[in-house]
């Protein structure tokens, strides 16, 4: 394939693809006006074909050309006046797929239980004789098909467990519901006094409510390893011995090949630079977004982005031998270890099933030995199975988690999985990445005080004219200082040089500083721009990555909560030490992704529960390996997918807030479980003594569930 053909092929891959969807969190939507503004103005931006706001979750789904990258889309939001952050989690549709059957079953169970309850109340309030018989028959006609439909989730799961030779919570539930229904049918036929149709259906309705909430809180496993490998190029230009070059797919590259890497191209294989010198974005391995200059003989890993000049690369590793494939393998194995965590509700249900089976069997045996006969003994056993129904138990955990995660979403904390709250409540050590996590990961203008107040409006006007990251940083700093721009004439931007204009007849400019202007402060390698503001003097503004606001305050609060912090960074050791000293915590630099993961595994092996906070591609394995992990919404897609909780905005105060909320949740969950156990202590002996009628069972079941729900609602005020 010729070069032109290869380029066309690339273009087709990128541009010819169908429009793609990306989800963004837009926390500052407040009113109908915001919805209208986003949905009307965003499709007017280049490359964007549609936008759909979901106000309840404060998200926007944008349909756009595949060629448009996330930063472009975020800039489009910025243009219409909204701050957006890209979200990378399982699609909403996928989540609904498993939820919808449960909601349908819940609706059927609720409908049937209400209608049957209506008839049953008439019986309780005195209907007897032929009308009681009629009501029982109508109840049976409603209950039998509805139990068969709504009970299916439990029956299927119970059958699966029994086939595998184990038992779970669904086995006693299924036995209880089926026995109660069959016994009631028998009672209906012989015109008995008590039927349990209402009990069986109410039980199913409450249990399904718990299941629906639980399903809503179940995170879709996404390890992020795939997103990582997607970071590499699909192929490269291979140089033949005769000097011609040819496009070769990544899979067909071999060790020893010489590749031509153009500026702006990602590497498809690991290699050594054979010729040329350029700046590279090494964020994949170090997490640092600042470019690093690499010359001949330097190693570069697949996924690294060549920024400046074309270089020739000699391939040293391809395919699964590449460093990035190794990181992806680490992530996969780490997320598998994490999935061994057993959720509190599941731990309880392991205890629950044997206890209930034993109680029911003992009651049955006791009444049989007492000489009560088959009929009454089975009725008592059913009463025990129904009354010990884990309604309150099944609701105790998910209701609390759903309430708190809804409130946390309002505060900019997206919880991906209910078990993350359980694990977060246990966290006792904090490990932080530096760049992009403790710091903002973008340039912030330092020393704007050097600009005379009278000239600041000119500087702002110049900065507003450019989309260069440094110009944006300068604009934000000046706007933050309350400056308003003045109009400029002859505004012109020259790429690579800067912005120039005329103000009141004098030439003004914001430009790349010349080497001579930077001579004064040698050793200062921070990015800089020069400002000529018409008064003859040149002002140099430096840019550095700044700590997130409230970083110190957040770490102090976390320390008070019993989480001592430590920095783990891929950055240079001296840069890490500077930040660590500023915050008064320990820090280690020069860490590779595997080093970070090893530290976390060491912590876990030592019996601690580390919370990892990181954002970069290089933090992926560590985020997956940690007991629980959080990532800022500015994190890479890999970081967001590997983390359990994503926090929006620049402030780090979301960390202590999330921990307090998680601990409050677990406190309420324990209270709920306590309430459920107390209820059982009173109800089970009554049931075993044969004193529980369907009326008592209905009242007891509903009230215990309502108490648990009411107690969980208190969590609405727990996220402060």
């Amino acid at each position, binding site marked *: 394939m010729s070069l032109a053909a290869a380029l066309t092929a690339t273009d087709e891959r990128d541009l010819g693809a169908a429009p793609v969807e990306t989800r963004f969190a837009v926390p500052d939507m407040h009113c*109908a006006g915001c919805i*209208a503004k986003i949905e009307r103005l965003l499709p007017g931006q280049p490359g964007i074909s549609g936008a759909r706001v*979901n*106000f309840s979750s404060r998200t926007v789904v944008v349909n756009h050309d595949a060629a448009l990258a996330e930063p472009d889309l975020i800039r489009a939001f910025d243009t219409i006046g909204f701050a957006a952050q890209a979200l990378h989690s399982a699609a909403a549709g996928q989540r609904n797929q498993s939820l919808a059957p449960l909601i349908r079953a819940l609706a059927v169970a609720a409908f049937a239980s209400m209608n049957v309850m*209506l008839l049953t109340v008439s019986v309780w309030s005195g209907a007897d004789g032929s009308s009681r018989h*009629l009501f029982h028959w109508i109840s049976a006609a409603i209950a039998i098909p509805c139990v068969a439909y709504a009970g299916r989730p439990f029956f299927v799961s119970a059958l699966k467990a029994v086939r595998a030779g184990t038992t779970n919570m669904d086995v006693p539930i299924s036995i209880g519901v089926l026995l109660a229904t069959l016994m009631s049918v028998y009672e209906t036929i012989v015109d008995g006094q008590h039927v349990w149709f209402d009990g069986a259906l109410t039980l199913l309705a409450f249990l399904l409510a718990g299941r629906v909430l639980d399903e809503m809180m179940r995170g879709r496993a996404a390890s992020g390893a795939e997103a990582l490998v997607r970071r590499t190029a699909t192929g490269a230009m291979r140089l033949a011995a005769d000097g011609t070059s040819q496009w070769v797919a990544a899979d067909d590259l071999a060790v020893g090949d010489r590749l031509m890497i153009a500026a702006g191209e990602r590497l498809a294989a690991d290699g050594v630079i054979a010729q040329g010198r350029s700046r590279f974005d090494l964020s994949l391995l170090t997490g640092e977004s600042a470019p690093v200059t690499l010359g001949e003989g330097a190693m570069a890993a697949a996924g690294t982005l060549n920024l400046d000049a074309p270089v020739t690369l000699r391939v040293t590793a391809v395919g699964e031998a590449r460093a990035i494939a190794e990181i992806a393998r680490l992530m996969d194995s780490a997320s598998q270890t994490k999935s061994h965590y057993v959720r509190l509700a599941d731990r309880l249900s392991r205890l629950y099933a044997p206890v209930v089976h034993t109680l029911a069997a003992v009651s049955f045996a006791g009444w049989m030995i007492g000489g009560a006969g088959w009929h009454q003994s089975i009725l008592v056993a059913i009463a025990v199975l129904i009354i010990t129904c884990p309604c309150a138990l099944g609701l105790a955990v998910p209701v609390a988690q759903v309430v708190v995660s809804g409130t946390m979403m309002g505060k900019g904390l997206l919880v991906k999985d209910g078990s993350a709250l359980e694990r977060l409540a246990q966290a006792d050590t904090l490990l932080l990445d530096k760049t992009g996590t403790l710091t903002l990961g973008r340039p912030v203008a330092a020393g704007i005080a050097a600009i005379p107040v009278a000239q600041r409006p000119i500087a702002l006007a110049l900065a507003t004219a450019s989309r260069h990251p440094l110009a944006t940083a300068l604009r934000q700093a000046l706007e933050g200082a309350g400056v308003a721009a003045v109009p400029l004439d002859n505004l012109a931007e020259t790429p690579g040089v800067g912005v120039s204009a005329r103000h009141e007849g004098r030439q003004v400019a914001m430009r790349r500083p010349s080497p001579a202007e930077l001579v004064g402060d040698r050793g200062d390698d921070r990015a800089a721009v020069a400002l000529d503001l018409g008064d003859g003097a040149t002002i140099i503004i430096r840019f550095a990555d700044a700590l997130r606001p409230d970083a110190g305050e957040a770490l102090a609060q976390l320390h008070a909560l019993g989480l001592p912090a430590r920095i783990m960074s891929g950055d240079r050791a001296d840069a890490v030490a500077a930040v660590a000293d500023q915050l008064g915590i320990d820090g280690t630099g020069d860490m590779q992704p595997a080093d970070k993961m090893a530290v976390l595994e060491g912590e876990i092996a030592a019996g601690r529960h580390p919370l990892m906070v990181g954002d970069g591609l290089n933090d992926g394995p560590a985020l997956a390996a940690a007991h629980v992990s959080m990532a800022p919404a500015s994190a890479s897609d890999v970081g967001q997918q590997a983390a359990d909780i994503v926090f929006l905005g620049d402030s780090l105060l979301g960390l202590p807030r999330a921990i307090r909320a998680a601990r409050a949740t677990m406190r309420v969950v324990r209270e709920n479980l306590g309430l459920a156990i107390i209820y059982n202590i009173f109800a089970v002996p009554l049931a075993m003594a044969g004193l529980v009628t369907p009326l008592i069972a209905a009242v007891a079941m509903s009230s215990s569930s309502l108490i648990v729900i009411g107690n969980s609602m208190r969590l609405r005020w727990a996220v402060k």
Partner: protein
Amino acid sequence: MNGLLILIPAALLLGLGGLVAFFWTLRAGQYDDPDGAAMRILIDEDELP
């Protein structure tokens, strides 16, 4: 007693109607964005900015 022969089927049919209506709203995605739906009625279609 004869009233029951009409009232019970009527009650059941109304209940069933409610269930069918719920399934329809679920399928139509009316629970996807409850807060947004409340906001959208305030958007004036012809007041384009």
